[in-house]
């Protein structure tokens, strides 16, 4: 039987690869990703399942699924030209991905299918730091976290639980790491940007509260507080927290090994090992 061996919450700021190339391995971003990469290597997963919000690159406003899963041998990315990131071909695990989708639909989640797809920085940037050799297959599970109406936090958590059960029912003895990608408070390109920047952190208090809930494993509180109103109060991409909530649904209600914030970016680096 496959088993979930670790959970990760990751940022995906598109300019981070450029900063790390410019500032070297001793900069804060490089160190925070290196610490996660070391934890991931120790967990030694056979497959990564990654909850992610696409930034209207894999999908668009002509066809926008609330939930979707990529089912293919490989996919490519990033497709949105973040600086200093090559275009990777990322291996996947279509049999397991298809099984997860089937299990999710049987459980009442009408998860859309995508094949022959590419992904944007929200998947490629974390992998660029965590598995740069792209040797670990990745299954992307997409949650619509930017364009209202958003799925509820409760629903995303339940989707995560369903994905967790689907993994547990997979007959091969695979080790699975589950990731959630995104920020807690961030406005990109909208009126709440900081002066002179292309982004901003509209609700730093929310970031502090989210991290406290994560550290105390108060998932019910987190879900109750993470209303659509609160997520958009935290920024136009504040809904990316839903990916972390789905990840927590998959791994179960556990205290993290650590959650390291970057308050100036409204996000954090989280590791759950047990």
């Amino acid at each position, binding site marked *: 039987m496959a088993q979930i061996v670790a959970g990760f919450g990751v940022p995906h700021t598109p300019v981070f690869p450029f900063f790390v190339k410019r500032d070297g391995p001793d900069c804060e971003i490089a160190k925070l990703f290196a610490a996660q990469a070391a934890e991931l290597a120790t967990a030694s997963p056979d497959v990564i399942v990654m909850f992610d919000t696409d930034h*209207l*690159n894999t999908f668009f406003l002509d066809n926008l699924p609330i939930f979707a899963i990529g089912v293919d041998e490989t996919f490519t990315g990033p497709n949105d*030209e973040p600086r200093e990131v090559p275009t990777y071909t990322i291996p996947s695990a279509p049999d397991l991905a298809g099984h997860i989708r089937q299990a999710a639909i049987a459980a009442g989640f009408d998860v859309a299918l995508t094949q022959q797809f590419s992904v944007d920085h929200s998947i490629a940037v974390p992998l660029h730091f965590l598995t740069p050799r792209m040797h670990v297959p990745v299954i992307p599970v997409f949650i619509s976290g*930017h364009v209202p109406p958003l799925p509820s936090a409760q629903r995303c958590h339940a989707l995560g639980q369903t994905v967790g059960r689907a993994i547990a029912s997979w007959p091969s003895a695979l080790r699975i790491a589950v990731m959630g990608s995104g920020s807690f408070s961030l406005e990109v390109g*909208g009126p709440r*940007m900081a002066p002179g920047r292309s982004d901003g952190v*509209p609700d730093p208090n929310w970031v502090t509260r989210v991290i406290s809930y994560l550290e105390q494993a108060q998932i019910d509180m987190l879900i109750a507080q993470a209303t659509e109103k609160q997520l958009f*109060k935290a920024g136009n991409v504040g809904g990316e927290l839903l990916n972390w909530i789905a990840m927590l649904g998959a791994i179960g209600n556990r205290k993290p090994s650590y959650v390291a914030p970057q308050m100036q970016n409204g996000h954090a680096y989280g590791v759950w090992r047990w």
Partner: protein
Amino acid sequence: MSIFTVNYLCRELLRDHAFRAAMKSDPTRALAHKDLTTSEREALLTGDVGALFRMGANAFLMAYMARFEVCGLNVEIYNQRMRAEKVDDQGRPLARLSRVF
């Protein structure tokens, strides 16, 4: 519903390098045959991203106009124009012209 076209063209700035080059060199011509209302076309050509935002354009997508520096925009000018917009506590324009999003 041509605000879809505005959003789509913003993403085309990222995807379609020929369109990106055309928008940098001669935006009036690049948009000549696009399905846009007069006010959308005028707002695009003058880089009036605040007006486009009020019409329902997606801010994340419009930021490509600043990133690729078309229609008189760059990160600084885009930032100033967007920050001048009045929004509610969820970041939506107070003078909202579209109810789609």
